[in-house]
């Protein structure tokens, strides 16, 4: 239900904002694409529409805020909230002798996170007495209405109507007050309107995630500061990747230059490449325990094959005329290695490094989820055990942002170090 509502809202915003931008925002396309008549399927003509990107991000936060009742989103944009406050309904009890009597149930529905407190009401008259129930929004309660009644269920009394609507064990009554049903034993099950908002335990509003982030940044989490956790993860990635590159690149070069190396390592590399590093986690834990060694070895293995394959294809991909030209310019084998083969393989190695960094970052988080005493993944894992969804979300967002940041840095480095990539 909530899922469908979400999807509908999302698609709606997508379409409406597209139409609005299309008809009301005048976009002047400049540059050579402006005069193109055929642009369909032309890559240079398709660039990300910045307005769309902004609206897309805003939409996600808006929907998030709206379906969590965020204080940052104006009230009229909130999805219907679950009922909170005081309500009441009457039930009609029929005694075994056929006599009927009405009694009222007073219900206090408290917002999420507040503890329901018991209260009492005067019993009223008749053999069915009034009841008092305190509960949390969106939940359903089973009301043992007959605890104070003069005729009990076990004596054969049963509820026949709610607010005048007939009810039986196989009918459900829905009124403006909520949803009523009878349990197998004849007790009343009541659920006030749930609305469309999420409970914070499923999805906390953005402000509580931010608040939690500020808190953890200030006080730390589990004896380590936030920066400590992220630093541990990054440190593992950097060391693991560096080791992988340090071994993988020379290995790839050797495989690209020597038949023997190629033959020897091909089966190993081709076998290890499709094995996801995550599948190695159990083995690594068994062999090396949950300390740093195991994690760094895991990341080393994650990046090793990628870097070896990248270096290998960088070497084999050299245009043979470049090597021939260098030979006939009098270069020695070592000089060709140093001045032709190695620089020529850099673009491939950079592509590999970007992939490897991404894989390492994902792997470290997964490894920390399984076993760690600090790290971004560990934060999420521990928080989820205590159902601290706001920390889980904060962790996920930080992991995403850092992963994105790593890729941007790698791209920047690539632009500076191998400016000729893709241009020869």
């Amino acid at each position, binding site marked *: 239900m909530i899922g469908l509502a979400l999807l509908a809202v999302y698609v709606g915003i997508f379409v409406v904002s597209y139409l609005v931008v299309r008809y009301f925002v005048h976009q002047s396309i400049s540059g050579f694409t402006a005069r193109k008549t055929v642009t369909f399927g032309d890559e240079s003509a398709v660039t990300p529409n910045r307005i769309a990107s902004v609206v897309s991000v805003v939409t996600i936060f808006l929907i998030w805020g709206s379906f969590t009742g965020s204080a940052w989103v104006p009230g009229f944009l909130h999805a219907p909230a679950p009922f909170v406050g005081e309500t009441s309904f009457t039930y009609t009890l029929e005694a075994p002798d056929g006599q009927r009597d009405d009694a009222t149930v007073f219900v206090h529905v408290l917002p999420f996170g507040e503890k329901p407190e018991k209260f009492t009401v005067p019993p009223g008259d008749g053999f069915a007495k009034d009841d008092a129930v305190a509960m949390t929004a969106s939940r359903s309660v089973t009301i043992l209405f007959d605890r104070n009644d003069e005729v009990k269920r076990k004596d054969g009394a049963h509820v026949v109507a709610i607010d005048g609507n007939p009810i039986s064990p196989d009918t459900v009554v829905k009124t403006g007050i909520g949803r009523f049903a009878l349990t197998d034993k004849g007790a009343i099950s009541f659920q006030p309107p749930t609305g469309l908002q999420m409970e914070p335990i499923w999805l906390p509003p953005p402000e509580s995630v931010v608040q939690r982030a500020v808190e953890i940044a200030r006080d730390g989490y589990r004896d380590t500061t936030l920066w400590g956790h992220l630093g541990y993860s990054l440190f593992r990635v950097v060391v693991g990747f560096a080791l992988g590159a340090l071994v993988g690149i020379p290995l790839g070069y050797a495989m690209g230059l020597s038949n023997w190396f190629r033959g020897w390592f091909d089966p190993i590399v081709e076998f290890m490449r499709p094995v996801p590093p995550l599948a190695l986690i159990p083995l690594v834990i068994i062999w090396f325990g949950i300390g740093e060694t195991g994690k760094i070895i895991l990341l080393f293995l994650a990046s090793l094959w990628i870097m070896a394959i990248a270096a290998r294809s960088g070497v084999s991909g050299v245009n043979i005329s*470049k090597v021939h*030209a260098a*030979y006939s*310019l009098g*270069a020695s084998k070592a000089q060709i290695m140093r*001045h032709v083969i190695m*620089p020529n393989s850099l673009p491939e190695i950079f592509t590999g490094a970007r992939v490897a960094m991404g894989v390492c970052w994902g792997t470290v988080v997964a490894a920390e989820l399984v076993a760690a005493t600090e790290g971004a993944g560990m934060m999420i894992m521990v928080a989820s055990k205590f159902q601290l969804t706001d920390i889980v979300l904060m962790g996920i967002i930080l992991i995403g942002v850092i992963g994105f940041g790593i890729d941007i840095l790698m791209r920047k480095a690539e632009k500076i170090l*191998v400016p000729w990539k893709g*241009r020869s």
Partner: protein
Amino acid sequence: MSGLSIEHVSMRFDLPNGSSVQALEDVSLHLKEGELMSVLGPSGCGKTTLLNIVAGFLAPTDGRVVMNGEEVTGPKADRGMVFQQGALFEWMDVRANVSFGPRMKGQREAEWGEKVDHLLEVTGLADFKDKAIYELSGGMQQRVALARCLANDPDVILMDEPLGALDALTREKMQGLVLKLWKETGKTIILITHSVEEAILLGERLVVMAPRPGRIHKEYRLPYAEMGVGADLREIKHAKGYAETREEILEMIWNMEEEIMGRAEELQ
């Protein structure tokens, strides 16, 4: 004995499927120092193979190549090579590309700087010497390739369709440059080309090769290269005998192509 001798060179490629291609059969040629020879022939007649053998990248199955009295056993700085495309080093700027040979010999900038700058000047690259290779047009890239080869001061320059990828106008300019450099430096040059006009204009000697097996079909001695030095190459095309030579060679190549096509049809 000075100069370059190609002596009874044959080359057979054994293919993985068991058959073999006779790329060259008994090719013999002698080039004196300072000669400019153009080589023409239909595609697949073994021109590149011949050049690779002279450069020392391939060992012939029969025969040998002798350079200044010494048998060729591998690539060496005395035989420079200019490729059609893609042989420049993108990770170096223009000047670093041109000075590659001297630098690999361990020379310091004091030793090669003047020569390299002069070559950049001559090839019209002085203003581009700090540019990256990928920022240059195709014509300029080929000028870098020429300058790089000359900076290494080889005795023989081997060119495999060096102007093949250029547009007609740039190509004409570059032909003039080749002639100029040839005259100024006195290098021995073998130039492979697809273009009959280019072969006639640039070849003091012109060798026409025939395919299957690759062999020398006919050889000409032509005056146009000498005439073309410093002159307008378009004028030369009106010189006496030019048109007749061109027609004759075109016809020859045309017939070879016909024969190839005919054989291909027969096979089908």
